[in-house]
């Protein structure tokens, strides 16, 4: 790998420029942009995704229905486009919520230390001890099925992960000279956290959020597959795959296309995370003075 030379050569370029030159990002960004456009534009479809046609049940791809129809004769393409809104909500709302909460908890725990740190981190350890889906299922079981509760469940599951990562970063940052200096000249703690620590977390958080977005999308798809996420008739990719597995013998396309949509989106988020990490890593020497 030629990362060594790339890193030194690109070290002074802005993160975005370096990101756009990355092959992985060049694949990921258009895919994610398509998902975003689909999500935003889905209302333009009108009731196409809800219109049933019992004369055309479980048909394969055709000119009339590009990706075929489902078990109630609805257009699969229209439903995938409609389902993009759910996916986007998960990637932004749920992960965003976890990011904000987790960062806050991580900052406080890492900077203050002491019993607050112990209390927060033991709680986080407890939550992390559960497999992701089991915890999400428990939350949904307590709150009841539905998109909003699925988003809450995913946020609850992801928050401790963010808290853990942020705390680790803060622990290494808080002993740095500029933090000590700020503390000595009397910068109040909230301002210190915001102005002197938070900016240095941006890279890590960006990468981690992209990774968590893909985990969250899988979690939502799993919840919907189990019938606990998005409720019908609102389409969700996970629920569509579930419906497809019920009719595998009658139609191959029903579970394949939504599954492909999930696969592409998750792959895009993972590749974006990789690309982001490299982009940020190369930038790091600027932020962290040489030892």
């Amino acid at each position: 790998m030629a990362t060594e030379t790339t890193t030194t050569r690109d070290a002074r370029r802005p993160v975005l420029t370096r990101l756009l030159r990355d092959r992985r990002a060049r694949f990921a960004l258009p895919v994610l942009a398509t998902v975003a456009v689909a999500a935003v534009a889905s209302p333009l479809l009108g009731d196409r995704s809800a219109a049933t046609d019992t004369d055309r049940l479980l048909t394969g791809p055709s000119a009339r229905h590009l990706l075929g129809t489902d078990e109630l004769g609805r257009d699969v393409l229209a439903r995938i486009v409609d389902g993009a809104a759910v996916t986007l909500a998960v990637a932004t709302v749920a992960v965003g919520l976890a990011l904000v909460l987790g960062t806050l908890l991580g900052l406080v725990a890492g900077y203050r230390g002491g019993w607050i740190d112990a209390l927060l981190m033991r709680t986080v350890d407890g939550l992390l001890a559960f497999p992701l889906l089991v915890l999400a299922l428990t939350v949904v079981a307590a709150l009841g099925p539905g998109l909003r509760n699925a988003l809450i469940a995913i946020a609850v599951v992801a928050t401790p992960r963010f808290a853990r990562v942020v705390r680790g970063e803060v622990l290494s940052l808080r002993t740095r000279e500029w933090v000590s200096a700020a503390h000595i000249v009397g910068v109040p703690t909230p301002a210190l956290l915001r102005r002197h620590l938070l900016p240095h977390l941006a890279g890590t958080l960006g990468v981690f959020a992209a990774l968590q977005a893909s985990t969250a999308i899988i979690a939502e798809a799993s919840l919907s597959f189990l019938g606990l996420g998005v409720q019908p008739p609102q389409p969700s990719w996970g629920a569509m795959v579930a419906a497809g597995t019920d009719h595998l013998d009658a139609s191959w396309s029903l579970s394949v296309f939504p599954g492909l949509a999930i696969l592409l989106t998750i792959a895009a988020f993972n590749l974006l995370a990789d690309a982001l990490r490299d982009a940020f890593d190369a930038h790091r020497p600027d932020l962290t003075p040489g030892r």
Partner: protein
Amino acid sequence: MDTPSVHPALLSRRALLGGTVGALAAVSLAACGSDSGTAGGKGRGGTLTVGFDNEPTTLDPALSSAISSDRNVLNLFYDTLLRQDRDGSFVPALADRWTEDGRTVTFTLREGVTFHDGTPFDAEAAAFNLRRVIDPATRSTKAAALKNVGSVDVVDARTLRLTLKASDPLLLIHLAHEPGMMASPTAVKAGDYGRKPVGTGPFVFDAWRSKVQLTGKRNPTYWRRATDGSALPRLEQVVFRFVTDTKVLRAEVTTGGVQLVRTLPPEEFNQLAGDKQITMTDTGVRRSYYVALNVTRAPFNDPKVRAAFAMAIDREGVGKAAAGGQYDLAPSFATAKDWFYDPSITPPALDPAGAKTALGGTPVPITVVARRRAPDPTIAELLQSQLTAAGFAPKVEVLEAQTQLDRMRKQDFDAALLVIDIPRLDPSLSFDPYFSSRGSNNWSGLADSTLDRLLDTAAASEDRAVRKQAYVEVQKRIVDENYWVFLHQPKSPLIHSAKLSGIVLDVDGQWRLDEAALAS
């Protein structure tokens, strides 16, 4: 006692795939008798493994509640005074003969029969069982079946006399099924009877592990003989495995893990077609899907809105989507082979545009309750789409079984989607609970004096022509008023291994396995 706790939401997809409606049992004298023939003397012995989706909550026949499935199990352990054959005729069982004179029924009991625990079966034991069902303290689910029995008298050890308060055309039917099943008085008095049944039947209860399986062993001293004089039962052992997931059940039938399965939905049994190892017989059993409309509150207290609902539903479309073409359409709980069937009864024609006009422009909000069990949510989703197109604003709530029934009992819904198994032992058992103002399952909240009068006439008469006339009028009234919208009737064939023969069916399609045999 192992009673695993169940988290409804966690298991709901499982629940959705499995589970079946408990419903009443019943007769149709029609039924296409396509029972497998008996296997002569061959195939003696062996273990029959059954895949069963609806585990009974109790094996006490006086307390059993899943009317369309429990008797499959109860028939292993219990006999009744008389049996009703598939064609509706009565044949002797624990009673050699009986006489009726309108106000009394006298049974002469078979000699030399003992319960599995050695307790002799005599008139005292028979009287104990019938009195136990009638006694309000028992809280028997079958008490209503014997409501016309005034007293049960032991004339001598072999003679039992029932004195009736009023003549009851359905009494013998009831006595031939759960309400007349004979349990050992010794065992009943010993307590915890529902988990440790003791009868006189072809199989002796062996073990029951909740959620896993139930085992019965051959009763070596069974009183009944096959027509060729050979001993019954033929099987050495019967194992009921409790599996709710229909996909698992289908896979088990395919691989031979089970040789008999209670019921599979069309999307599963369609995949078994052409498999030479498996026999599928349409025995006339249907599942009848319906939507009950709540007439006690707006909007369905208005007949015009109910008519619009009926015009909005594409019943053929529902059948195609939910039953893969394996369905019939019928005007009500009647099937085309039933004596009370009348093809001239027709629901309103499909006309979404007309419905929309009738509703007058603004979408009418309604709440539809459905059960979380395939394919009900799919049907609900399709109804939602069809109703939206016809000017309703439907909200669908997919609920666990008990929650849905609670909501329906409290009339806290607008439209309810549910299913019963038909035929039942008698049409009165199909219609009275749902359409009489006193009915236990009067979901719609009906208080229709015309219907009540017709139902009473039909239930009280012994004259088939009078009954038919009344039941046809009942169905006309229900359909004309659109109290209910009857959807499709998916087929529910008898599915078993080709090696298994000799399954005898009750009038409503439930099994008797004493003559069943497995070819090696």
